[in-house]
């Protein structure tokens, strides 16, 4: 399942990383090198094995549904590239 330039273009878009046309082919080769190496996982018998998503076996803790934090508008906006009147400023998204 070799990756070609068109696949890289699609995946780069999924990752929201602008990738110039002349980078697609070299990137495809790099990714193929890595994926070929990864393909050895096909040798492992995984019949009936549950996927392991966490090292922690304890159930997630629940807490009371109450406000524990907040009222920090200035903190939240302090690193915003653009903000105004207590809001983030973003490009127009709805015409």
């Amino acid at each position, binding site marked *: *399942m070799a*990756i070609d330039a068109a*696949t*890289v273009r699609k*995946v*780069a*878009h*999924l*990752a*929201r*990383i*602008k*990738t110039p046309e002349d980078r697609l082919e070299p*990137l495809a080769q*790099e*990714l193929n*090198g*890595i*994926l070929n*190496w*990864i*393909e*050895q*996982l096909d*040798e*492992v018998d*995984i019949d009936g*094995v*549950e*996927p*392991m*998503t*966490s*090292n*922690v076996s*304890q159930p*997630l*803790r629940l*807490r009371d549904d109450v406000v524990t934090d907040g009222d*920090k508008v200035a*903190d*939240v906006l*302090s*690193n*915003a*590239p*653009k903000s105004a009147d207590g809001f*983030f400023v*973003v*490009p127009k*998204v709805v015409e």
Partner: protein
Amino acid sequence: MTDLTKLTLKSAIDGLKARDFSSEEITRAFIANIDAANPVLNAYVVQTSDKALDMARASDARLARGEGGALEGAPLGVKDLFCTDGVQTTAGSNMLRGFIPPYESTVTANLWADGAVMLGKLNMDEFAMGSSNETSAYGPVKNPWKSKSSNADLTPGGSSGGSASAVSGDLCLAATASDTGGSIRQPAAFTGTVGIKPTYGRASRFGMVAFASSLDQAGPITRTVEDAAILLHSMCSFDPRDSTSLDVETPDWTASLGKGVKGLRIGVPREYVVDGMPAEIQALWDQGVAWLGAAGAEIVEISLPHTKYALPTYYIVAPAEASSNLARYDGMRFGHHADHFTSLNDLYEESRAEGFGKEVQRRLTIGAYVLSAGFYDAFYVKALKVRRRIAQDFDNVWDRVDAILTPSTPSAAFAIGDKQIDPVTMYLNDVFTVTANLAGLPGISVPAGLDSGGLPLGLQVIGKALDEATVFQVADVLEQSAAFTARPDKWW
């Protein structure tokens, strides 16, 4: 007078408490070292000298009153991955250049509560993705060590390369670090220092810049095993703000030291003999086995049959988690924002292309690929299943062994630029360390010898989940047996 910057953390804490010297004195000594060395070694990306002196004077006041915490007055370095209130935190990335967290990570908050002094933020591979510190937006860190046979600049390993270089080069008493696939243990091995990654969930991830959340774990890099026991104790705590934080007591691990290993069963996994491993690494490993045997441990040959699949599994799981975690960098709320764009999507894509370096882009692309429709089961779910196989390998041996001994790395430190040609060659650095991350187990690297070029080599001890006590017990015996006293010659 003693050079205060060469003290162990333990002897510095004792000296401060005894008022043999002040925190301001030792802090000034480190600042002088950093000022002189950092233009060459590039270990610190931010120096907080004024803040350090303020903290030191506050510590001195507490010590004068007979008060103070477990780390009172001790100057430490902090990996740039830990958010520090009011001090720039970038995780080595242009994406976060200028980011000033308005809050403190739990790990560093614990250090300051115990009285530690912050010297500054330490360089690292960008978002902790690298094994040589060469992916940092601030340029590579240099290893204080050089080979006898070459004048080439060596990497201190990665991703916690700044931490390892600073501890080894007398630029702090000890440092915080983090380990997703080996990022504490490999740099420790490359610099003749001690590094431990605790059991997953021991140290809070709150305020750590995320890479791969099911694998990331904080830990210290220090000069001795005892120092590691002290600093790790301070770093660990139960934290309700991290959903995977373990609600368990943090033991006093210094109680493990001096106990010896008589009667302990030490596993030696045959699968850790890898193709092309230098004879020196095998010899070091054999030496470690002999030391533990001579100290009364029972050596047990074991099999961890899925070991060879750990790295390929990691290179699916970690990029997948990174692709999800790093989606937060959208150029809107914090982080780099492109100046020129034609649409909302274009703003995302331009900001991320400009802000992320090459290796991060490569891994995010892999992550997006293995999570994408049509490939999710073939790659991601399969990797999660193999991950369980790897964890089960360990579960299957714990009834026969108390700890496992392996080399820390497949080689000594290599030259900057040496392994940049092929990503997979670089990834192989973590072949011995990554299994502990996938299985969530504690692992420590202890300096155990020198290669033919006079460069340090490390041995790794892996333990059961939450059994750092045995890990420290074994590490202590290795440290005593190796009597590793070599230090890098100062050339910087």
